[in-house]
């Protein structure tokens, strides 16, 4: 009997939770855009392998929202960021996309992070007519995802090619090792590098994949050590880059040059990599050494709010939100109007540079070159 009672209590608790959730979620669905707040969705991974980046994006986007709210909101309305976790899983992303697209108080969405999630959500957003601005999906396929899909990050092709030219033309490397994470992002970048290197006449002597979150790189580094490689280009993120940088010395690769794109830009790279991170070369659009006033204001606000330096994706999250807020300020919170405005947006300065969209909703920006010196990112002029 005791068990039965407990089960009953348990079920009742579930039911109660369900009801509260429904009433809080359901109540707002039909209140259109006439409410006293403007709501922006934020669909990012808060659990799973990319949780850390999702958190950065959320923090960055929140800064943009806070700045607007502190300045009195838009037309006297406060802006609210509605955060949903897509777990970095395309199936969950579709659910979240449905949830946000259906909620008519949501004007536009910052998200998703993983290209697979952006692609899974795209048909839903496009059908519902909601703008999604991806802060992290650089895969080529996102270009064709639809009129309502934008991104503030350039495609892999832009940065990958730029990095390859830097390595081959300016630094004179002829034999390159590419280590990439076995995800949509890593593979996309690896493919771009392969093409670029072939065009530039350089060789990729080692091309190896690793799993996100892997801790042991001895196998791939041993392969690099026994090859002719003069530099390692990483198609992955900061955590793994830091580990690779740190472990390379065990294989006699202390002086091996490591290069990467903006995905490795994060304080975590320096923190985890320690001394081994010094000398890493990377391209990017955002840096705490940036001379842009917008970037500096963002960095200051971020540091104050979260007590740490923003990573690349925080800046992208900020820019994605900034673009949406700019649209709302100019044309109001109407979904279609936002899309129309963004499709011709040009020259909006954000933390990651000047944002303009081409006809596919891809952003056009110029990357800069950076390195790490004495544990700090430095822009190479």
């Amino acid at each position: 009997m005791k068990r039965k009672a407990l089960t009953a209590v348990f079920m009742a608790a579930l039911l109660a939770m369900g009801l509260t959730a429904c009433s809080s979620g359901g109540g707002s669905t039909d209140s259109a855009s006439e409410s006293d707040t403007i709501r922006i969705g934020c669909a990012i991974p808060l659990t799973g392998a990319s949780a850390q980046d999702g958190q950065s994006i959320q923090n960055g986007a929140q800064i943009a929202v806070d700045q607007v709210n502190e300045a009195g909101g838009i037309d006297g309305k406060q802006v609210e960021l509605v955060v949903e976790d897509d777990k970095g899983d395309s199936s969950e992303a579709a659910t979240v996309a449905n949830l946000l697209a259906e909620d008519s108080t949501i004007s536009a969405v910052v998200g998703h992070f993983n290209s697979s999630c952006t692609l899974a959500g795209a048909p839903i957003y496009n059908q519902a007519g909601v703008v999604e601005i991806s802060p992290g999906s650089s895969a080529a396929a996102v270009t064709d995802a639809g009129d309502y899909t934008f991104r503030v990050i350039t495609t892999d092709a832009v940065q990958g090619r730029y990095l390859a030219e830097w390595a081959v033309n300016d630094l004179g490397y002829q034999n390159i090792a590419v280590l990439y994470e076995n995800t949509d992002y890593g593979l996309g970048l690896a493919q771009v590098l392969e093409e670029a290197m072939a065009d530039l006449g350089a060789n990729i002597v080692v091309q190896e994949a690793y799993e996100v979150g892997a801790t042991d790189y001895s196998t791939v580094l041993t392969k690099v050590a026994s090859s002719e490689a003069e530099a390692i280009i990483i198609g992955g993120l900061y955590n793994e880059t830091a580990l690779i940088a740190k472990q390379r010395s065990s294989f006699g690769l202390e002086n091996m040059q490591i290069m990467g794109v903006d995905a490795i830009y994060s304080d975590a790279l320096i923190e985890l990599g320690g001394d081994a991170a010094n000398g890493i070369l990377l391209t990017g659009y955002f840096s705490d050494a940036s001379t842009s006033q917008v970037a500096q204001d963002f960095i200051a606000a971020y540091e104050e709010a979260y007590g740490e330096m923003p990573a690349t994706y925080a800046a992208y999250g900020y820019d994605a939100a900034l673009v949406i807020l700019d649209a709302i300020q100019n044309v109001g919170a109407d979904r279609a109007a936002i899309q129309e405005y963004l499709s011709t947006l040009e020259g909006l300065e954000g933390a990651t540079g000047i944002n303009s969209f081409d006809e596919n909703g891809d952003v056009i920006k110029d990357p800069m070159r950076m390195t790490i010196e004495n544990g700090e990112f430095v822009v190479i002029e």
Partner: protein
Amino acid sequence: MFTQQLMNGITVGGVYALIALGYTMVYGILKIVNFAHGDVFMMGMFLGMFFTQSLGLHYLIAFPLAAAATAFVGICIERIAYRPIRVADKLAVLISALGVSIFLQNLAMLVWGTETHTFNSGITVQTYRLGSVTLSNIQIGVIVLCCVLMIVLYVVVNKTKIGVAMRATSHSIVSAKLMGINTDRIISFTFGVGSVLACVAGILVGIYYDAVYPTIGYSYGLKAFAAAILGGIGSIPGAMLGGFVIGIVETFGAAYISSGYRDAFAFGILIIVLIFKPSGILGVKHVDKV
């Protein structure tokens, strides 16, 4: 390159072996697979980090404290999630274990955040060069500790009084109880020991790779589980052997065939071995009593 890759494989295998010992011990006693063991390993890492970094203790004090705390976590898991349903369907225990695993992962995320932390133990990694092969003090530590702990465990289980009680419990909880053995205590002890081993593995991984994050237990846990089964679950030398085999096979597979399929080699060898020897390499053949 071959010798170097072999060393790499043995080091990784040693870590798997240490975690696999925990799986094997719990299975030996209760005949259940503690699916949350990978997350106990993760907790061990975080606790190690907590005592050294957050409390600023010297590692000689911090690590035993971490081991004790991890043992406590393991014992609590058994108490709360397994003991009430020990006699129920095996599947119920399995689901409960999966629940514990999800719980621990998310607990770690809440407490320490989702980011990767440095371990900062105060022990520095030193590398030695022997011809074309490089070795670090931690690598040597992993391998030596593995062998030592295996021997200690083997002696404890086979030569001591508590070992006799463990084997009796393993044989039949009911009859062990009748013989006056406090089986609950023996089971708690087993979980404690298994968790300490997981913590040791966690700390070694932490020092060696200098990175800790909440989902790290997943892949180590799976591989170690595979290792325990491969070697013959319930067998202490089997867990060791399985760990080294998995470590070496996946390293060579990744090195010479394709690094993208790294995990597939580990599971592939497991499936192949089980098809030909269903009880694992050193496992005892199970004869159904009729």
